[in-house]
């Protein structure tokens, strides 16, 4: 049997440095969609490193306040949403699972690995009436979708949930890129049977290396999930940083405003070069482009790493972190487009 290839991700600077012969520190990495100006991490007290993490350290309560979930919901801190993306498929007998395509590949990969039958859902599927929904036992939706930036109206998502739940199905909503957007999260409905919501600190908070997130689930899934994850799934320092980051409401409000402005700026910049994004979030813009491969290659030769997709051909641009990076992106795009003019 041929092993399915592991999904590729952005942010692999060491590999890029080797492939294009440009030293690591000279790269402008726009390949990830991680906030380049993340939450400022404070010093961690020595006992946090030395003691075992304690479940009643107040993190669960902090997550409740952060997400605004009702009492019926269970909040489970996670070592990144990846932990639960891998754990969830094992909690159900193999069935049919709908996963957005293009979409974050780990979902498709994890369900397929666990023996489920994966039905890729294209943008066209989303735009039409959801006849495909009746075939599914589980629907995974990424809100807003990564990399396309497409998002589904909250009422429509809830209607899908109703139809799935009526048959004992699940709706899994990955809200990794929803932070900072008003009226997007399904957290106010968390706790209903079969509704799984995934939160992450990797994107908006810029703490991708921390591997911290949370699952908002109903008590039944919650109990199983806690058992599968085992004790101390999230390290003490991660719990400490996470609790403080999500409690910092002032920073969150200021950052949401700032990212709103910067994502508009990125949209405008790309459009000025004829690369009008077809979708995006606060943290990235998605550009469908016939010459995506050539553009990505030419940008990489100039030391700018963007994420490239082949089916359909597209590029994902993350936010530059400071003025000189913004200027570098603009200058390089001008140069690269000039160089791709062949006839």
């Amino acid at each position, binding site marked *: 049997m041929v092993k399915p290839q592991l999904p590729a991700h952005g942010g692999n600077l060491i590999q890029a440095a080797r492939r294009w012969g440009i030293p690591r520190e000279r790269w402008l990495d726009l390949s990830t969609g991680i906030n380049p100006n993340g939450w400022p991490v404070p010093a961690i007290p020595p006992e946090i490193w030395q003691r075992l993490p304690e479940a009643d350290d107040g993190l669960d309560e902090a997550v409740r306040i952060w997400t605004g979930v009702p009492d019926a919901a269970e909040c489970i801190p996670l070592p990144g949403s990846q932990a639960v993306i891998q754990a969830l498929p094992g909690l159900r007998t193999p069935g049919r699972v709908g996963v957005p395509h293009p979409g974050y590949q780990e979902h498709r990969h994890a369900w397929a690995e666990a023996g489920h039958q994966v039905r890729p859902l294209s943008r066209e599927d989303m735009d039409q009436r959801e006849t495909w929904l009746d075939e599914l036992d589980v629907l995974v939706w990424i809100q807003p979708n990564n990399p396309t930036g497409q998002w589904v109206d909250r009422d429509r998502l809830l209607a899908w949930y109703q139809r799935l739940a009526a048959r004992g199905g699940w709706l899994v909503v990955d809200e990794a890129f929803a932070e900072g957007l008003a009226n997007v999260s399904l957290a106010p409905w968390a706790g209903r049977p079969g509704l799984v919501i995934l939160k992450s600190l990797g994107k908006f908070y810029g703490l991708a290396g921390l591997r911290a997130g949370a699952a908002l689930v109903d008590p039944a899934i919650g109990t199983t999930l806690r058992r599968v994850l085992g004790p101390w799934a999230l390290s003490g320092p991660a719990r400490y940083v996470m609790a403080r980051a999500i409690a910092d409401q002032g920073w969150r409000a200021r950052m949401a405003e700032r990212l709103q402005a910067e994502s508009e700026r990125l949209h405008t910049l790309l459009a*000025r*070069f*004829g*690369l009008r994004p077809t979708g995006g979030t606060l943290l990235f813009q998605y550009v469908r*482009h*016939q*010459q995506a491969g*050539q*553009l990505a290659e030419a940008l990489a030769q100039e030391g700018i790493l963007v994420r490239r997709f082949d089916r359909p051909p597209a590029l994902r641009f993350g936010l530059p972190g400071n003025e000189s990076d913004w200027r570098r992106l603009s200058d390089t*795009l*001008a140069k*690269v*487009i*000039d*160089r*791709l*003019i*062949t*006839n």
Partner: protein
Amino acid sequence: MEWFVSSVGVCLAAVMLDRWWGEPSRWHPLVGFGAVVERLEHRLNRPQGTSVWRGALAVTLLVGPLVSVVLVIAWLLPQPLDWLFSALVLWLAISLRGLAEHGMAVARPLAAGNLAEARERVGWIVSRQASALDEAGVAAAATESMLENGADAVFASLFWFLLAGPAGVVAHRLINTLDAMWGYRNERYLRFGRVAARLDDAMNWGPARLTALTYALLGHRQLAWRCWRSQAPAWDSPNAGPVMAAGAGALGVSLGGPAPYAAGLKQRPQLGEGPAPDAVTIQQAIGLVRRGVWLWLLVLLVLAVTGGVLPW
């Protein structure tokens, strides 16, 4: 002086031939040349895009023999036949009527509201992505092409004929064609095409400025002059800059600006001043080139006539 008078006569004859016959419809010598250029580039540009010297060799191999042949023919032919030969060479090089016909093929459907056909036709004369152009974009592309080709083909050919005879015309025409085929800044041509591009820059330096002056004199003079001075330096080609800035100013329209290619929008500075161009602008640009040619012929005639009288 006799030489100058006969050269002016040949210029007049070539322009007349162009008026009567236009472009040769069946066979143009440059078509065959293009095929040879492509084959030689495939052979010599290896490994692709690495060598300036191989590009220089290619230019020499392509231009040298043809220019030598023209020199020998001009040398061997007796007087009246020599003039006829010169007039034929110059006629083939200027193709003013061909330029006007290409421009009108865009202007006519554009004026009739047939944007699809105008796009298709403009795609024949410019390399940008025609499908992404709106009405003003089509008009701007065609107008820019008229102004630039007026300089490169019409005025530069007259200039090089007066300076170096039929061999000069052929050398300029071939190098200009090589620049059009190899003068790109992509990996394939950046090095290989450098010699052709620099030679073209050098050969067109004088003619481009005389053309810009011609456009300025025959249009909105002050605006053309102001645009030439202020906008041309920012343009990425040292010769197209003055020609197009002065031309846009002379016509009193806005040209330049971002242009769509398959890879994306190429950022270009603004040229000229005033409203966006339309179908009429293309016709005005053709008119500007035409009147420019008459102005040149008039000046040449005056010089030829007074040449005998004046002390020099």
